[in-house]
Protein backbone atom coordinates (compact mmCIF):
# COMPACT_ATOMS: atom_id res chain seq x y z
CA UNK A 1 0.00 0.00 0.00
CA UNK A 2 1.23 3.46 -0.81
CA UNK A 3 1.30 5.97 2.00
CA UNK A 4 -0.34 9.03 0.41
CA UNK A 5 0.89 11.30 3.21
CA UNK A 6 4.49 10.57 2.29
CA UNK A 7 4.37 11.50 -1.40
CA UNK A 8 6.29 14.39 -2.93
CA UNK A 9 4.29 17.52 -3.67
CA UNK A 10 6.03 19.24 -6.52
CA UNK A 11 5.26 22.90 -7.04
CA UNK A 12 2.09 23.38 -9.03
CA UNK A 13 1.79 19.72 -9.97
CA UNK A 14 0.18 16.50 -8.84
CA UNK A 15 1.84 14.55 -6.03
CA UNK A 16 4.52 12.21 -7.30
CA UNK A 17 5.28 8.93 -5.58
CA UNK A 18 8.94 8.87 -4.58
CA UNK A 19 10.96 5.81 -5.44
CA UNK A 20 10.39 3.06 -2.93
CA UNK A 21 6.73 3.81 -2.25
CA UNK A 22 5.50 2.56 -5.61
CA UNK A 23 7.48 -0.37 -6.91
CA UNK A 24 9.73 0.05 -9.90
CA UNK A 25 10.59 -3.64 -9.82
CA UNK A 26 10.64 -5.24 -13.23
CA UNK A 27 9.96 -8.84 -14.20
CA UNK A 28 13.71 -9.53 -14.09
CA UNK A 29 13.86 -8.53 -10.42
CA UNK A 30 11.15 -11.05 -9.57
CA UNK A 31 12.91 -13.73 -11.62
CA UNK A 32 16.12 -13.02 -9.67
CA UNK A 33 14.18 -13.72 -6.44
CA UNK A 34 13.67 -17.28 -7.69
CA UNK A 35 17.45 -18.01 -7.63
CA UNK A 36 17.52 -19.30 -11.22
CA UNK A 37 20.91 -21.04 -10.88
CA UNK A 38 19.78 -23.04 -7.85
CA UNK A 39 16.51 -23.71 -9.65
CA UNK A 40 18.33 -25.14 -12.67
CA UNK A 41 20.15 -27.67 -10.44
CA UNK A 42 16.86 -28.58 -8.74
CA UNK A 43 15.13 -29.12 -12.10
CA UNK A 44 18.03 -31.20 -13.40
CA UNK A 45 18.17 -33.54 -10.38
CA UNK A 46 14.36 -33.82 -10.28
CA UNK A 47 14.40 -34.72 -13.98
CA UNK A 48 16.82 -37.55 -13.22
CA UNK A 49 14.47 -38.83 -10.51
CA UNK A 50 11.61 -38.71 -13.02
CA UNK A 51 13.50 -40.47 -15.81
CA UNK A 52 15.04 -43.33 -13.79
CA UNK A 53 11.79 -44.07 -11.93
CA UNK A 54 10.14 -47.30 -13.10
CA UNK A 55 6.89 -46.99 -14.97
CA UNK A 56 5.62 -44.60 -17.56
CA UNK A 57 4.36 -41.09 -17.19
CA UNK A 58 2.88 -38.88 -19.89
CA UNK A 59 5.32 -36.16 -21.04
CA UNK A 60 2.78 -33.45 -20.17
CA UNK A 61 2.47 -34.79 -16.62
CA UNK A 62 6.26 -35.04 -16.34
CA UNK A 63 6.59 -31.45 -17.57
CA UNK A 64 3.94 -30.34 -15.06
CA UNK A 65 5.81 -32.06 -12.23
CA UNK A 66 9.10 -30.39 -13.21
CA UNK A 67 7.42 -27.01 -13.55
CA UNK A 68 5.88 -27.29 -10.08
CA UNK A 69 9.17 -28.45 -8.54
CA UNK A 70 10.97 -25.53 -10.24
CA UNK A 71 8.39 -22.98 -9.06
CA UNK A 72 8.41 -24.50 -5.57
CA UNK A 73 12.21 -24.18 -5.45
CA UNK A 74 11.93 -20.59 -6.69
CA UNK A 75 9.35 -19.82 -4.01
CA UNK A 76 11.72 -21.16 -1.35
CA UNK A 77 14.46 -18.94 -2.80
CA UNK A 78 12.21 -15.85 -2.64
CA UNK A 79 11.26 -16.59 0.97
CA UNK A 80 14.94 -17.13 1.80
CA UNK A 81 15.76 -13.70 0.33
CA UNK A 82 12.89 -12.16 2.29
CA UNK A 83 14.21 -13.44 5.61
CA UNK A 84 17.90 -12.96 4.84
CA UNK A 85 17.64 -9.46 3.37
CA UNK A 86 19.59 -7.97 6.30
CA UNK A 87 22.58 -10.29 6.01
CA UNK A 88 22.43 -10.34 2.19
CA UNK A 89 23.07 -6.59 2.28
CA UNK A 90 26.30 -7.15 4.26
CA UNK A 91 27.80 -9.81 2.00
CA UNK A 92 29.55 -9.06 -1.27
CA UNK A 93 28.18 -12.19 -2.94
CA UNK A 94 24.55 -11.32 -2.18
CA UNK A 95 24.49 -7.51 -1.95
CA UNK A 96 23.19 -7.21 -5.52
CA UNK A 97 20.05 -9.26 -4.83
CA UNK A 98 16.76 -7.43 -5.48
CA UNK A 99 15.87 -6.66 -1.84
CA UNK A 100 19.26 -5.25 -0.71
CA UNK A 101 19.34 -3.17 -3.90
CA UNK A 102 15.94 -1.71 -3.00
CA UNK A 103 14.21 -3.02 -6.11
CA UNK A 104 11.72 -5.16 -4.19
CA UNK A 105 10.51 -4.72 -0.61
CA UNK A 106 10.78 -7.67 1.81
CA UNK A 107 6.98 -7.75 2.04
CA UNK A 108 6.63 -8.05 -1.74
CA UNK A 109 9.16 -10.89 -1.78
CA UNK A 110 7.33 -12.70 1.04
CA UNK A 111 3.98 -12.36 -0.73
CA UNK A 112 5.48 -13.48 -4.02
CA UNK A 113 7.19 -16.50 -2.43
CA UNK A 114 4.15 -17.62 -0.44
CA UNK A 115 1.83 -17.31 -3.46
CA UNK A 116 4.16 -19.32 -5.67
CA UNK A 117 4.66 -21.95 -2.95
CA UNK A 118 0.92 -22.46 -2.52
CA UNK A 119 0.34 -22.63 -6.29
CA UNK A 120 3.25 -25.02 -6.91
CA UNK A 121 2.16 -27.45 -4.18
CA UNK A 122 -1.54 -27.29 -5.08
CA UNK A 123 -0.97 -27.79 -8.82
CA UNK A 124 1.49 -30.65 -8.23
CA UNK A 125 -1.06 -32.34 -5.95
CA UNK A 126 -4.06 -31.77 -8.20
CA UNK A 127 -2.42 -32.70 -11.49
CA UNK A 128 0.38 -35.14 -10.61
CA UNK A 129 0.62 -36.75 -7.17
CA UNK A 130 -0.28 -35.74 -3.64
CA UNK A 131 2.74 -37.58 -2.20
CA UNK A 132 5.02 -35.51 -4.46
CA UNK A 133 3.10 -32.38 -3.43
CA UNK A 134 3.50 -33.12 0.28
CA UNK A 135 7.23 -33.70 -0.28
CA UNK A 136 7.53 -30.42 -2.17
CA UNK A 137 5.70 -28.58 0.64
CA UNK A 138 8.05 -30.20 3.18
CA UNK A 139 11.09 -29.23 1.10
CA UNK A 140 9.99 -25.58 0.98
CA UNK A 141 9.25 -25.66 4.73
CA UNK A 142 12.62 -27.26 5.44
CA UNK A 143 14.56 -24.74 3.38
CA UNK A 144 12.74 -21.66 4.69
CA UNK A 145 11.95 -22.53 8.31
CA UNK A 146 14.48 -25.18 9.33
CA UNK A 147 17.48 -23.91 7.34
CA UNK A 148 16.96 -20.17 6.74
CA UNK A 149 15.11 -19.11 9.88
CA UNK A 150 16.33 -21.62 12.44
CA UNK A 151 19.76 -23.08 11.60
CA UNK A 152 21.59 -20.64 9.33
CA UNK A 153 22.35 -18.04 12.00
CA UNK A 154 22.74 -20.47 14.90
CA UNK A 155 25.02 -23.37 14.05
CA UNK A 156 27.97 -24.22 11.79
CA UNK A 157 26.04 -27.38 10.92
CA UNK A 158 23.55 -25.14 9.07
CA UNK A 159 24.40 -26.32 5.58
CA UNK A 160 24.87 -29.95 6.66
CA UNK A 161 21.28 -30.25 7.90
CA UNK A 162 19.90 -27.60 5.54
CA UNK A 163 21.47 -29.44 2.62
CA UNK A 164 18.62 -31.93 2.88
CA UNK A 165 16.34 -29.36 1.25
CA UNK A 166 18.47 -29.37 -1.90
CA UNK A 167 18.60 -33.16 -1.87
CA UNK A 168 14.85 -33.78 -1.97
CA UNK A 169 14.09 -32.93 -5.66
CA UNK A 170 15.09 -36.32 -7.18
CA UNK A 171 12.88 -38.02 -4.58
CA UNK A 172 10.00 -35.72 -5.54
CA UNK A 173 10.58 -36.53 -9.23
CA UNK A 174 10.56 -40.24 -8.43
CA UNK A 175 7.39 -39.91 -6.31
CA UNK A 176 5.69 -37.97 -9.13
CA UNK A 177 6.04 -41.03 -11.38
CA UNK A 178 5.63 -43.94 -8.98
CA UNK A 179 3.49 -42.44 -6.23
CA UNK A 180 5.95 -43.94 -3.73
CA UNK A 181 9.57 -43.96 -2.55
CA UNK A 182 12.21 -46.70 -2.64
CA UNK A 183 15.96 -47.11 -2.09
CA UNK A 184 17.12 -45.67 -5.46
CA UNK A 185 15.82 -42.12 -4.88
CA UNK A 186 17.06 -42.28 -1.28
CA UNK A 187 20.56 -42.95 -2.68
CA UNK A 188 20.23 -39.89 -4.92
CA UNK A 189 19.15 -37.92 -1.85
CA UNK A 190 22.23 -39.14 0.04
CA UNK A 191 24.56 -38.20 -2.81
CA UNK A 192 23.36 -34.58 -2.87
CA UNK A 193 23.15 -34.46 0.94
CA UNK A 194 26.79 -35.55 1.35
CA UNK A 195 27.94 -33.41 -1.59
CA UNK A 196 26.52 -30.18 -0.14
CA UNK A 197 28.95 -29.66 2.82
CA UNK A 198 32.24 -29.97 0.86
CA UNK A 199 30.72 -27.89 -1.94
CA UNK A 200 29.60 -25.02 0.30
CA UNK A 201 32.52 -25.16 2.70
CA UNK A 202 34.90 -24.83 -0.25
CA UNK A 203 33.01 -21.66 -1.17
CA UNK A 204 32.89 -20.41 2.42
CA UNK A 205 36.69 -20.83 2.77
CA UNK A 206 37.06 -18.09 0.17
CA UNK A 207 34.22 -15.98 1.62
CA UNK A 208 34.90 -16.31 5.34
CA UNK A 209 35.21 -12.53 5.79
CA UNK A 210 31.78 -12.04 4.22
CA UNK A 211 30.16 -14.57 6.53
CA UNK A 212 31.96 -13.17 9.59
CA UNK A 213 30.78 -9.63 8.76
CA UNK A 214 27.20 -10.90 8.48
CA UNK A 215 27.63 -12.95 11.68
CA UNK A 216 26.67 -16.18 9.91
CA UNK A 217 28.39 -19.02 11.82
CA UNK A 218 29.78 -20.88 8.83
CA UNK A 219 32.36 -23.51 9.74
CA UNK A 220 35.47 -21.47 8.72
CA UNK A 221 34.24 -18.57 10.88
CA UNK A 222 33.44 -20.69 13.95
CA UNK A 223 35.93 -23.58 13.81
CA UNK A 224 38.60 -22.06 11.58
CA UNK A 225 39.86 -22.89 8.07
CA UNK A 226 41.92 -25.88 9.27
CA UNK A 227 38.96 -27.74 10.73
CA UNK A 228 36.86 -26.81 7.68
CA UNK A 229 39.49 -28.35 5.37
CA UNK A 230 39.51 -31.52 7.49
CA UNK A 231 35.71 -31.76 7.37
CA UNK A 232 35.73 -31.21 3.60
CA UNK A 233 38.09 -34.18 3.19
CA UNK A 234 36.06 -36.39 5.55
CA UNK A 235 32.79 -35.67 3.75
CA UNK A 236 34.44 -36.24 0.36
CA UNK A 237 35.78 -39.60 1.57
CA UNK A 238 32.25 -40.65 2.54
CA UNK A 239 30.65 -39.11 -0.55
CA UNK A 240 32.78 -40.93 -3.15
CA UNK A 241 31.72 -44.51 -2.22
CA UNK A 242 28.10 -43.47 -1.60
CA UNK A 243 28.04 -41.92 -5.08
CA UNK A 244 29.16 -45.27 -6.51
CA UNK A 245 26.48 -47.18 -4.55
CA UNK A 246 23.81 -47.03 -7.30
CA UNK A 247 26.23 -49.00 -9.48
CA UNK A 248 27.32 -51.70 -7.04
CA UNK A 249 23.76 -52.13 -5.79
CA UNK A 250 22.69 -52.77 -9.39
CA UNK A 251 20.57 -49.66 -9.91
CA UNK A 252 22.91 -48.05 -12.45
CA UNK A 253 25.05 -49.34 -15.33
CA UNK A 254 28.79 -49.76 -15.82
CA UNK A 255 29.23 -46.31 -17.37
CA UNK A 256 27.84 -44.79 -14.20
CA UNK A 257 30.07 -47.03 -12.09
CA UNK A 258 33.24 -45.96 -13.90
CA UNK A 259 32.16 -42.30 -13.85
CA UNK A 260 31.36 -42.42 -10.12
CA UNK A 261 34.68 -44.10 -9.23
CA UNK A 262 36.90 -41.88 -11.39
CA UNK A 263 35.06 -38.64 -10.63
CA UNK A 264 34.82 -39.57 -6.94
CA UNK A 265 38.58 -40.19 -6.77
CA UNK A 266 39.13 -36.76 -8.33
CA UNK A 267 36.77 -35.20 -5.78
CA UNK A 268 38.82 -36.74 -2.97
CA UNK A 269 42.04 -35.59 -4.68
CA UNK A 270 40.79 -32.00 -4.91
CA UNK A 271 39.67 -32.16 -1.26
CA UNK A 272 43.14 -33.47 -0.36
CA UNK A 273 44.61 -30.54 -2.28
CA UNK A 274 42.56 -28.15 -0.15
CA UNK A 275 44.07 -29.81 2.93
CA UNK A 276 47.62 -29.59 1.62
CA UNK A 277 47.46 -25.95 0.54
CA UNK A 278 46.69 -24.16 3.80
CA UNK A 279 48.00 -20.63 3.24
CA UNK A 280 47.95 -17.73 0.85
CA UNK A 281 46.84 -17.50 -2.75
CA UNK A 282 47.49 -21.20 -3.41
CA UNK A 283 45.02 -22.16 -0.64
CA UNK A 284 42.37 -19.88 -2.15
CA UNK A 285 42.97 -21.36 -5.59
CA UNK A 286 42.67 -24.91 -4.21
CA UNK A 287 39.34 -24.07 -2.54
CA UNK A 288 38.00 -22.46 -5.72
CA UNK A 289 39.16 -25.46 -7.76
CA UNK A 290 37.29 -27.83 -5.43
CA UNK A 291 34.17 -25.64 -5.53
CA UNK A 292 34.14 -25.59 -9.35
CA UNK A 293 34.95 -29.28 -9.64
CA UNK A 294 32.22 -30.26 -7.16
CA UNK A 295 29.60 -28.75 -9.49
CA UNK A 296 31.02 -30.68 -12.44
CA UNK A 297 31.16 -33.85 -10.31
CA UNK A 298 27.49 -33.75 -9.33
CA UNK A 299 26.48 -32.80 -12.85
CA UNK A 300 28.47 -35.72 -14.32
CA UNK A 301 26.92 -38.24 -11.91
CA UNK A 302 23.36 -37.17 -12.62
CA UNK A 303 23.95 -36.68 -16.37
CA UNK A 304 25.15 -40.29 -16.70
CA UNK A 305 22.17 -41.51 -14.67
CA UNK A 306 19.92 -39.46 -16.94
CA UNK A 307 21.46 -40.90 -20.11
CA UNK A 308 21.37 -44.46 -18.79
CA UNK A 309 17.78 -43.96 -17.62
CA UNK A 310 16.83 -42.40 -20.96
CA UNK A 311 18.34 -45.32 -22.87
CA UNK A 312 16.54 -47.75 -20.57
CA UNK A 313 13.24 -45.94 -21.11
CA UNK A 314 13.75 -45.80 -24.89
CA UNK A 315 14.61 -49.49 -24.92
CA UNK A 316 11.41 -50.26 -23.02
Amino acid at each position, binding site marked *: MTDISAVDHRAGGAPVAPAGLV*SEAGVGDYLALLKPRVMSLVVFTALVGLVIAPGHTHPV*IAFTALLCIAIGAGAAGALNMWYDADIDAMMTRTAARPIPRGRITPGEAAGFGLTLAVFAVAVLGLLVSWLAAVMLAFTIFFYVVIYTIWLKRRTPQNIVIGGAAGAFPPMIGWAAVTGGISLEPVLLFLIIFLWTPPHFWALSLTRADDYARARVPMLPVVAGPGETRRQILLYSLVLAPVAAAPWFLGYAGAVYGVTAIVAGALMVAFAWGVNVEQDGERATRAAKRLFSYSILYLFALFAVLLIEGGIGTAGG
Partner: protein
Amino acid sequence: MADKPERVVLTEQQKRSRRARSIALALALGALVILFYIVTLVKGPGVLNRPL
Protein backbone atom coordinates in the same frame (compact mmCIF):
# COMPACT_ATOMS: atom_id res chain seq x y z
CA MET B 1 -18.05 20.71 -1.80
CA ALA B 2 -15.75 17.85 -0.91
CA ASP B 3 -12.15 18.09 -2.10
CA LYS B 4 -11.12 15.78 -4.89
CA PRO B 5 -9.21 12.80 -3.43
CA GLU B 6 -5.45 13.22 -3.59
CA ARG B 7 -3.85 10.80 -6.01
CA VAL B 8 -0.33 9.70 -6.68
CA VAL B 9 1.00 10.28 -10.16
CA LEU B 10 3.28 7.48 -11.24
CA THR B 11 6.53 8.26 -12.97
CA GLU B 12 7.11 6.87 -16.46
CA GLN B 13 9.47 4.25 -15.01
CA GLN B 14 6.87 3.16 -12.47
CA LYS B 15 4.23 2.91 -15.21
CA ARG B 16 6.53 0.84 -17.44
CA SER B 17 7.40 -1.51 -14.57
CA ARG B 18 3.76 -1.91 -13.60
CA ARG B 19 2.79 -2.67 -17.19
CA ALA B 20 5.57 -5.27 -17.52
CA ARG B 21 4.50 -6.92 -14.25
CA SER B 22 0.86 -6.95 -15.35
CA ILE B 23 1.73 -8.58 -18.67
CA ALA B 24 3.91 -11.19 -16.96
CA LEU B 25 1.11 -11.97 -14.50
CA ALA B 26 -1.45 -12.29 -17.33
CA LEU B 27 0.86 -14.61 -19.27
CA ALA B 28 1.48 -16.75 -16.17
CA LEU B 29 -2.25 -17.06 -15.46
CA GLY B 30 -2.97 -17.82 -19.13
CA ALA B 31 -0.27 -20.52 -19.09
CA LEU B 32 -1.83 -22.03 -15.96
CA VAL B 33 -5.26 -22.18 -17.64
CA ILE B 34 -3.76 -23.84 -20.74
CA LEU B 35 -1.80 -26.28 -18.54
CA PHE B 36 -4.97 -27.35 -16.68
CA TYR B 37 -6.83 -27.70 -19.99
CA ILE B 38 -4.12 -29.89 -21.57
CA VAL B 39 -3.68 -32.05 -18.45
CA THR B 40 -7.44 -32.58 -18.32
CA LEU B 41 -7.33 -33.79 -21.94
CA VAL B 42 -4.35 -36.04 -21.20
CA LYS B 43 -5.86 -37.59 -18.10
CA GLY B 44 -9.36 -37.84 -19.52
CA PRO B 45 -12.11 -38.99 -17.19
CA GLY B 46 -9.50 -40.26 -14.72
CA VAL B 47 -8.26 -36.75 -13.95
CA LEU B 48 -9.21 -37.11 -10.31
CA ASN B 49 -7.66 -40.58 -9.94
CA ARG B 50 -4.05 -40.20 -8.85
CA PRO B 51 -1.71 -41.94 -6.48
CA LEU B 52 -1.63 -40.56 -2.98
